[in-house]
């Protein structure tokens, strides 16, 4: 039991560090999802099944979906802006 707790705690610390030092958001979302899995396990090992269930349900679909949607939205905005600038540029040149 003690081994289990110590191991999972160290896992949590390492995974969190890795997530923070992943600077590219798209990669980081996958890392955050993995971190959620480890965290849910830690909660269960610390005898908190309610909290673990909360973490699992949130971390599995809802949180990644929100991050992915906002990343997609931001990328789309950037593309649209670029296109608009290009067409303006063309108009000025003409």
């Amino acid at each position, binding site marked *: 039991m003690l081994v289990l707790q110590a191991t999972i705690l160290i896992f949590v610390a390492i995974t969190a560090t890795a997530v923070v030092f992943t600077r590219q958001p798209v990669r980081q979302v996958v890392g955050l999802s993995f971190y959620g899995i480890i965290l849910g396990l830690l909660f269960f090992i610390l005898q*908190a*099944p*309610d909290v*673990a*269930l*909360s973490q699992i*349900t*949130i971390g*599995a*679909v*809802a949180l990644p*979906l*929100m991050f992915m*949607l*906002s990343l*997609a*939205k931001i990328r*789309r905005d950037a*593309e*649209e802006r670029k*296109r608009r600038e290009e067409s303006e540029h063309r108009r000025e040149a003409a």
Partner: protein
Amino acid sequence: MNRRVRRWFFLICACAIFGLFVSAVRQMPTFGHYRGPYGDILNRETVYERHITDVVTAVNFDWRGIDTLGEESILFLSVIGTLVLLRKPSSEVNDSHDENDTADKRKGREIPLPSAATRVATLGLVGPLVVFGLYIVAHGHLTPGGGFQGGVILATAPLLVYLAGDLKSFKRIANHETVQIGEALGLLGFLILGLPGMIRGGAYLRNVLPLGTSGHVFSGGMIAPINVCTGVAVSAGLVAVTYVFLEHTLETRLRGRR
């Protein structure tokens, strides 16, 4: 403040926080030797006093009910905030969709429908997920679970419909107005359920229903209805938030397809 100064400032502060924290923790009971009285009292008395086997749910919706009401209003307010921030500005409503669509196709990013196997598997999963979510909400006072977790699971079901490639069905299931009304009704239900206790001359959120036999689904008095209200509020809130994000991201892209 430039980048390097900020980093050094952070490092000094981090060392200070770490030192202070360690010295504070040394005064606390060591890990694994909990000695506060509240947890023990609750663990001993809850089953007798409230006929509920999951003490965490009892703390959430009965002993500490007013706190949970506060938490739920945080949830409500952040959902409202998201909806307000992401509402469509009127200038963008008449954006030329054709231009967007051709731009997408030019870049080779037209949308392929997911394969039939994915669709069948995903849509087949929706039914069990709804049943499981309802089970988690309904058994919140017996086994781990409750309105919050069950609500999230229920919110996942319409999202799966979208992920199977059916945005139209998603919009039909999760009609935006209905979802918003559900969100409001969830919080309102919680607020109203607190009143009967006051009318009967007690405190807000006091139990007025019969307690039933512990271990049965119909037990615990007020906790089950409050659980259901929370489940409705949470699931509606999450679906509403995802809906506005989806609408913003996808609207123009999907219009050309169907």
